[in-house]
């Protein structure tokens, strides 16, 4: 089992969701987050005084998948989230020790 975390542009969430759904992934968790990468923040003017936006709004997607699906899901996220402009985000893949379905107590791949 693997855990896939992706930081993407808020505007690309729908695209990513559709592509991942099409692969038969059964669950996906989304959080609204802020941060910076190579894109950094930017400076704006409010009533004549400058202010900087250091942390840009991004969407953090978490998906737990079985090993066989990892490459496909990663490809789907890349396809859905890529605009080609700086600030498209990142994907982190890590191994997952266990998964428990709270309602039934099931464990392992069957609980995903």
């Amino acid at each position, binding site marked *: 089992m693997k855990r896939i975390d992706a930081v993407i542009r808020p505007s690309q969430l729908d695209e990513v969701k559709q592509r991942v759904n099409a692969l038969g992934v059964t669950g996906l968790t989304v959080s609204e987050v802020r941060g910076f990468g190579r894109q950094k923040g930017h400076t*704006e*003017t*409010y*009533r*004549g*005084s*400058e*202010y900087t936006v250091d942390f840009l709004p991004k969407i953090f997607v978490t998906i737990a998948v079985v090993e066989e699906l990892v490459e496909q899901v990663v490809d789907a996220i890349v396809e859905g989230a890529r605009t080609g402009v700086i600030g498209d985000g990142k994907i982190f893949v890590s191994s997952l020790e266990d998964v428990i379905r709270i309602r039934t107590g099931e464990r392992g791949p069957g609980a995903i």
Partner: protein
Amino acid sequence: MQFSNRSITKRIPQAILILVFAQFLCGSLSIALADQAQADPAGTATGDKTSVVDAAGNPFVVPEPTDTSAPDYAKNKKDFEEFQTQAAKEPLAMKLADGVGHTRIATNFSWTLLTGYLVLFMQAGFALLTCGLVRKKNAGHLMMLNFAAYVFAFLAYYAVGYAFQFGAIAVNAAPSNLGGTPTLNHFLIGSGQWGFLGGKGFFLTGPAYDAGSNCLTLFEVVFMETAGYIIVGAICERITFWAFLLCELFIGALLYPISGCWVWGGGWMSQLGSSMHLGHGYVDFAGSSVVHGIGGFCAMALAVILGPRLGKYGPDGKPRGFPASNIVFVVTGTFLLLFGWMGFNPGSTLGATDLRISVVAVNTNLAAVAGSAAAMLLWYRLFGKPDITMACNGMLAGLVAITAPCAFVSPTASVIIGILAGGLVCAGVLFNERVLKIDDPCGAISVHGYCGWLGAVSLGIFADGTYGAGWNGVGSAAYLGKAGQGVTGLLHGDWSQFLVQLGGATLLAIYAFGATYIVFSGVNAWRSMRVTREVELTGLDVPQFGMLAYPEDAVEMLTAGSQAPQRGL
């Protein structure tokens, strides 16, 4: 300031005693000063045939001439006798005239009260505007300031403010559209053309317990409130609640009524035309300087005393922007203010029988859109993007500036005044922020102070003489050699009007800033009017009022372990 419960319960009976005593005092005072004029609480004696006038304001009832030495005495005497003969022949016509006179006053009551309600609703506009312009962590604080301003300034105005401002209005400036309020006829300080403070109608008792007077009270109290909540925009996000209440009591009881008496209560500034031959005296139709200028420069003094918000100026002295938290509120609030202004300016005729109201309404709107257009385009040019909050400030700047001249100028002049105000408000915001380094979160000083001053001065430039014949008792027969010539500005041939406007508006600005600075420097020395550093950083809502405007934000705003309200149910 923390009042303990014990001290509050001790003070309530004291406060009631004072009120009862005041009631008694005013009752006996009014008896002592009683003259032929009687208050009319029921309104059944207000408005009779003497209130009937034609479109030009000529009275139906011809008065008996008293000055036998006047050059046209013989003609007036003949007119009077002719009227008496006709009146004796047609008693039914005289009865009818009583009804017509009463209806005229009733029409004017309706207009004045309704426009007063519109001005009252500007409170909601100000609350939304200022709340939207500040950071979310202070939203509750902003709402409470706007709310408490209405409550406490109103009570102060009821107690003494109204009497100080209008207690002598019948002496020089009787509002004939509302029946003349003949009972408000005594200056506490000064007399005749040099009145400084009204002296009748404390606690709205005796001479002020009158239908005509109360119509004026309702309309004028909401004007005072406008000055009262202007200050919120400049002092918010850092002032303590107790200090704010003191500010409101000060404005409602003293600062606003005193200068209000000078200009609108028949006081010395309004009479400079008769006493010193300066134009029509100091003229401010609906309060560019009397209301907005006073509020704006009072706000300036308070902002100087309080100092800028934490983090507003970096270590290099450069100002930082604290972006508005809710642009939707800002724009909605501005439109509510524009709507309310349709009461503020046209209502200041105190009567629908004065048909100039349509010109006033059009002029007011024109200045608003011209001001907004100017600010928007100027900002577009200066910074590459039109700032939404400055576009709103531009509209308010146009409104503030046209408030004094709206009845006396042409629509084209209104557009020019609006453009000037739109430019001035942008310059003023940058000047305060970068040069004076006064932190004014909502631009109140620039919008109301600077543009208020500009409005009163522009009256002295653009007034075209088509309206206001006999204003402040000057030139009722003829002015500048022309019959029916009204208030006239520099461009139409009256230098003296410009001088009195320039001097008067400047004096009012200095008065508002100076009086506020002196009083509240003292208060601030006694006890700091500013919240502590920790409170300012957290946001004032919970430390000052025990609640957040948006409790669902609590998880983000309060540290773990504090008594944060739970999310959801």
